[in-house]
């Protein structure tokens, strides 16, 4: 305790405190936030509220009955999974000022998202939001997940999911911070340039294996700092900066010692 007291005035103390506070808030939120599974128990009430939310926030682009318009897809039959993915990652409502709709802080809380999803799901059958069981990494097999990821996803998302470039400024984002549910939904609905991996392509069990593999990557590498998981280019950069940098520094020091 004494040591702690002594460090109270350290100049990093506020930063540490802030981080702790954020962590605590995040933890509490995770506990309190309703699990996506509850979206299934949609009732008429939810659908009604969802419809209102939709008309206020989405109808300008997607049309008053979500029938779509020029360049904006119809949402009939995209299912609750698509809405939950798009809205919880902040992609929708969209602000188009780049080659693709990007992630931003979500504009709706979990309840509103579920209501929107319920409304869109009521327009036509589509994939539902996965259950907590379906996305539980501890039930998946990371070895099978690695194999599936390698053959289906790595060409866009990089071998460990660090992200990669597509044509014309589009990109496959890093998957290092995506929630398990969003990973599942992305495969199921294929947002934007990403292909759909329906349950015939990649079975629900295999999807869970992929999640298990991706979650494993977040634990870091047995070899030390992962350097972003970007492969040889970042390794090359680091050898010049750290390796040669330190050694040239040492050489200058040794050279200077003599004269």
């Amino acid at each position, binding site marked *: 305790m004494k040591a702690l007291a002594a460090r109270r005035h350290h100049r990093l103390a506020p930063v540490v405190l802030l981080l702790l506070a954020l962590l605590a808030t995040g933890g509490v939120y995770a506990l309190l936030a309703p699990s996506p599974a509850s979206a299934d128990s949609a009732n008429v009430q939810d659908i009604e509220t969802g419809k209102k939310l939709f008309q206020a926030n989405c109808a300008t682009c997607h049309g008053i009955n979500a029938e779509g318009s020029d360049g904006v897809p119809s949402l009939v039959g995209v299912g609750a999974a698509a809405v939950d993915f798009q809205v919880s990652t902040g992609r929708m409502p969209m602000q188009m000022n780049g080659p693709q709709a990007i992630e931003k802080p979500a504009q709706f809380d979990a309840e509103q998202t579920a209501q929107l999803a319920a409304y869109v799901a009521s327009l036509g059958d589509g994939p539902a939001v996965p259950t907590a069981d379906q996305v539980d990494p501890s039930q998946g097999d990371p070895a099978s997940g690695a194999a599936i990821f390698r053959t289906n996803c790595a060409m866009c*998302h990089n071998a460990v999911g660090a992200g990669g*470039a597509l044509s014309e*400024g589009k990109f496959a984002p890093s998957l290092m911070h995506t929630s398990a549910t969003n990973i599942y939904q992305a495969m199921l609905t294929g947002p934007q340039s990403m292909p759909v991996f329906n349950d015939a392509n990649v079975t629900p069990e295999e999807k869970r294996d992929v999640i298990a593999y991706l979650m*494993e990557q977040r634990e870091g590498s047995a070899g*030390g700092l992962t350097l972003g998981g970007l492969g040889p*280019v970042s390794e090359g950069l680091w050898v010049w900066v750290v390796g040669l940098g330190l050694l040239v520094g040492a*050489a200058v020091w040794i050279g200077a010692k003599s004269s």
Partner: protein
Amino acid sequence: MTTTTTERAAAGAADYLDQRTGIGHAVKEFARKTFPDHWSFLLGEIALYSFVVLILSGFFLTMFFVPSMALVTHHGAPNTMDGVLMSEAFSSTLHTSFEVRGGLLMRQIHHWAALLFMAAIVTHMMRVFFTGAFRKPRELNWLVGTLLLILGLGAGFTGYSLPDDVLSGNGLRITDGVVKSIPIIGSYMSYFIFGGEFPGDDIIPRLFTLHILVVPGIILALVGVHLLMVVLHKHTQYPGGGRTDKNVVGFPLFPVYVAKAGGFFFVVFGVIALMGATMAINNVWNYGPFDPSPVSAGAQPDWYMLFLEGSLRLMPGQTEYVIGGFTLSLNILIPAVIIPGLLFTFLFVYPFIEAAVTKDKNEHHVLDRPRNVPVRTGLGVAFLTAFIILALAGSNDLIATHFSLSINSITWAFRILFFVGPWFAFWVTKRICLGLQRKDRELVLHGHETGRIVRFANGEYIEVHRPLDEQERWLRVNYTAHRPLEIEPATDSRGVRRKGYKNERRLARLSRFFYEDRVEPVTPAELAAAHAHGDHDELGSSESHGEITSGTQH
């Protein structure tokens, strides 16, 4: 002082050896060799020591690596690879990484040392190039060095391919494509190299033999030749007071230099070990066992091969032609064979080109300051620019994602830059060099500005200039500015066309390109004239007082 038994025994043994081999004389000679001191002379040593680390760690790896492409089911760590079908090479690499004590550390040390080895070679080469250390009598050693660079690439490439993961397999697939693009013999060569259709099951054992025996063996032999030549030629030295082409100013090899160099080995080893211990490199289990179908985003070779990758990425794909049933793949041949061929040819021939355009037959032991040879420096920077642009083009996808750019525009930008950038870099560098030379002239002639303003009785202000000391002046005037070659007329005195005139004219043109723009060093006469004229500048020196009153200065 009493001699102990051990000391007596050591002296006895040394004497025994000396009487039979005469080694004492050689050691004494060697110990008295003089080495000048400068940090940039240690760059080669970084390369040498990383090579030593490579041999030591590589030796460890051979104890566990199984160079076989036979398929096995891997059991054990890491759990992402448990129960997966893979080659024995890959499985043994995983085994080394996760089961062998210190195995992963050794792998990472080996790989970091390889990257550092190449980085040190490249910077060492830059030092030699920009200071003109390749001039007579060291041209051959430059050739040996360039060979070492290429062998280093070979060592890195063969090693990178050994673990048989997806990334190394991608590299081999590209190699296969490049070999096949060679007209006529390409497909035969590919079958020859891979022992049949790619990937076959011979390539790993073959690469293994190359990687641990042939390539390091040749490197070791050439390093020996390289160092022997350094000792024979004596070390070059930077220009400065008292240093000439006839002497070497520095410390004796023993004990000062040996102590420094020996200590530096441990620094190099330490840095590599630190990197190996804390920074993950080539975590092959992320890429998985080789399988020809997947290619992941961010699939790139190690940095020293990145220029080839970039060259391939920049080349438009449409340049493949089918002529009479034969395919001519210019889209691969040009970027992967011709471009690197040109780059390496430049490295091999440059010393000889410079010798030809200067007709300079003297030995040089004092280095050039890069500014004093503007065209050489410009060419060097142009070369590096091309190399760096290609390497960046090889990373175009990462540039796109990290700077939110479109990969298509980046590729186009690099295509243009590859042709424009080197010219521009050459032009700018040459201008900067000439500017710096002029500044040196200024400085020698007029001395340092001191910021002290003096006002004379007649109202005139001047700034006091302090003349350069001996050392500073020596550094700035002691160089030769070569002039373009003069050639004799096309016909001799009897009006007969001279043989070889055309070649001479070509050489003269090249020489003009090199030395047309030049800044001559200040001559003693100019210096004297400047002093007589502007002595008032040197208010500090006593003999100038008479001049001040004259009031005729500008």
